[in-house]
């Protein structure tokens, strides 16, 4: 049999898991971008040329250096309070990274767990969890977030919690649907007739098969979460103002976009876009690499 597989021309396969992750199609640019953002976030204090929270009113609305009126002192210009945009972007990376990733991970853990339990156990457990999810979805998400923010008060970590409890429902829905089809698969039945307990099956057979969807959903949710963070900041209940956050900057810049001060909103917008896009591409690559059937192709 071993000889036969050689004959039909399958490439000889390396046994090592690491080598199996072929690096030919590795999404280098997205990883570099995310890596840069992460590094910038970590070393923000060293990199930022100015204090991001204190500006000089004399230097309000300076354009980026290549435009007339710009100076190399403020490479990417200044905002309505004379704060350096570049420094704010650098510190904003920290907030966006923390808020984006932790909120997505928290929401993912809650949603995936409930989705698997709901889908696999079925019956009244499913009913309870799904009705909870339904009513959660029926709540206007933003209003709910405002309500929560009003209760717990604005701070970066509260935003993380608010976003997590607002967005877990999407995971729960998607994952439950996957589980419903998975549990009819023969290998789950075989596990049942082999005497595995429900928890063992959920852990060993269901979870690994839905984790790909959860990761892909997570990379998509990253964008939504960052935008919601921006909205909350815009409404004054997000990251509290002097602190720099991309979403906050985007909203702050909106008013002056009409009078040509594009750099105030376009630059943070680009940062958000780069981060979300990179995360999406990386997530897609991960999805392929985590699936042993696709890995070989």
């Amino acid at each position, binding site marked *: *049999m*071993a000889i*036969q*597989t050689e004959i039909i021309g*399958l490439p000889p*396969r390396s*046994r090592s898991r690491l080598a199996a992750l072929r690096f030919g199609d590795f999404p280098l640019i997205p990883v570099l971008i995310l890596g840069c953002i992460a590094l910038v976030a970590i070393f923000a204090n060293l990199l930022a040329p100015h204090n991001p929270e204190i500006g000089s009113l004399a230097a309000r609305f300076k354009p980026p250096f290549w435009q007339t009126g710009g100076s190399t002192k403020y490479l990417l210009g200044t905002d309505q309070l004379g704060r350096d945009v570049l420094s704010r972007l650098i510190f904003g990376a920290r907030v966006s990274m923390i808020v984006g990733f932790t909120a997505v991970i928290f929401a993912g853990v809650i949603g995936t767990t409930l989705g698997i339990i709901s889908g696999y156990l*079925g*019956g009244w457990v499913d009913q309870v969890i799904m009705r909870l999810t339904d009513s959660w979805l029926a709540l206007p998400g933003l209003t709910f977030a405002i309500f929560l923010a009003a209760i717990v008060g604005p701070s970066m970590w509260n935003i993380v919690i608010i976003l997590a409890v607002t967005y877990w429902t999407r995971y729960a829905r998607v994952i439950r649907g996957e589980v419903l089809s998975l549990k009819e*698969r*023969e*290998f789950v*039945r*075989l*596990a*049942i*007739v*082999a*005497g*595995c*307990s429900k928890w*063992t099956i959920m852990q*060993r*057979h269901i979870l*690994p*098969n839905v984790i790909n969807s959860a990761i892909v959903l997570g990379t998509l949710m990253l964008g939504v979460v960052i935008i919601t963070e921006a909205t909350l900041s815009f409404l004054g209940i997000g990251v509290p103002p002097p602190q720099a956050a991309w979403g906050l900057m985007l909203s702050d810049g909106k008013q002056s976009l009409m009078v040509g001060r594009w750099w105030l909103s376009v630059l943070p917008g680009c940062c958000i876009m780069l981060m979300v896009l990179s995360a999406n591409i990386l997530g897609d690559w991960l999805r392929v690499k985590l*699936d*042993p*059937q696709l890995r070989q192709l």
Partner: protein
Amino acid sequence: MSSSIPSSVSYEPTGQRLPVKTGPLLELENLSTHYVSSGGTRVVRAVDQVSLRINAGETLGIVGESGSGKSTLALTILRVLPPAARIVEGRMLFDGEDLVQKSDAEMRHIRGKRIAMILQDPMASLNPLFTIGDQVAEPIRVHEGAGRATAWQRARDLLKSVRIPSPETRVTQYPHEMSGGMRQRIVGAIGISCEPRLLIADEPTTSLDLTIQAQYLNLLRELQRAHGLALIFITHNLGIVAKMCDQLAVMYAGRVVESGPVSRIFNAPVHPYTEALLNSIPRMGDSAQRLTAIEGQPPDLAALPRGCAFAPRCDRVFDRCRVEAPPEFAPAGRRTARCWLAAADSTPSDMLVQSGTA
């Protein structure tokens, strides 16, 4: 293929070396499983008053059309029925213990360990995300609490015993890297991994081509012999029954209409349904004739006729068949038949069981 299991295999069967207990390994008594609709308005009698017995080391074939309750019977024995199904009456004595009375936790220790099952589509029975070794080792780890290294070593031995070449490398591969026949044998290896006493195979060869089928059946027989397994073989292929089985039970509309030793049933079927089934097998040499079919459709299990369920399709039907369902009669020689035609030369099987003629 005809040689026995390689001697290097460390799988010393332990079960059949023990003195065989008197009495059958599994005895089903008057077992009924019904599907009840949520309102309780529709009751589907998927398995109805089934009494069967199987001894250690024996092969029991269960044949019948689709929807005759074969698979539900298998699921009933393992107590892995879908939520809508209920075991409404009867006993299942396995090694003298009634499986109907067992708690879920107790059943979990029996499933996979003492009674194993091979599913209808073994091709899809493997989890695509785990290596072969992980999956063959899983029941060993679950049931015997063996460590990873021990379980994997046994997985390698098991793969060898089901004739997977170079098991050392195969254990680290994934299901999609195997051919259909190999996956099938791997599922077989999972089935015997905890040395069960009873293996239920639910149409294990339907998804295989004929040459692989034959190989797989040979393998099953060898495993059975080497491990002293009792085998319940669910199929609709009478050719396989003739090749594989000692005992045969023919199911129709949820009931066992005829059971007994294969050779006797094949030579002299008592029930007209069995006879019709046997006549519908195409034979070499008479290609000129049309194949014989059984006219009509199987009955709706939720609305069975008052008399014998087969009466509307039976060509030897008489008045009594339409008004009264036949009980299980026992013609000579460990046989049973649910047919009034058998009434003349036999006694009802209840009497037979009590007099201990088995």
